[in-house]
């Protein structure tokens, strides 16, 4: 590539810090009661 002119300024662009959504624990499944046959 060519011709972008003289250097003038240096910057740094970092990824944004986006809060990670808190993981909601899945509700416990009720234990199935064993029914005698």
């Amino acid at each position, binding site marked *: *590539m*060519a*011709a*972008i*002119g*003289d*250097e*003038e*300024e*240096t*910057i*740094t*662009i*970092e*990824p*944004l810090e*986006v809060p990670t959504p808190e993981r909601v624990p899945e509700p416990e499944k009720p234990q199935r009661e064993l029914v005698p046959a």
Partner: protein
Amino acid sequence: MSSSLPDERRLINVNGQWIDGLVGYRCWRSGGGLLRSVVKGSWLQQVHADRALCTPYSGVTSHVHGPVEGCKCGYFAWYSPHSSWENFAARYFYHGEIVAWGKIIKHELGFRAEHYALSALYMHDGMEGRLEVVTQLADRYDVPLVRVDPTSPGMKYFPDRG
């Protein structure tokens, strides 16, 4: 130092991370279904370029990654698409829009960046014979193929801003 240099930003998602990157304009050659750097011949393997490397072409070998002040390394881009067309004839090259991040050295007319992602490819008069190729390239990188008029002074296209 100057604070009056262009600073057009665009929010992109790169591998799950949001980046408010700097918009720029580049051009490439094509081959093998990929875009290829005009100067160095490196290929753009995916929509996000690998971290810029300094090569012997740059003239300074004391560092590995670019851009570095006083060197010629990093991914070059212009602030305006018109600069891209003025430097590389639209009839021979593929022009498009990028979003850059990481370390960026701003120059008067453009910048050198550590990272960039392709955000759009352009289609314009004079490319009729290459329509199939540029369409395949846009599909390959999954970016918009945008019909533009390089003769329009205000020509700019931002896919996410209408």
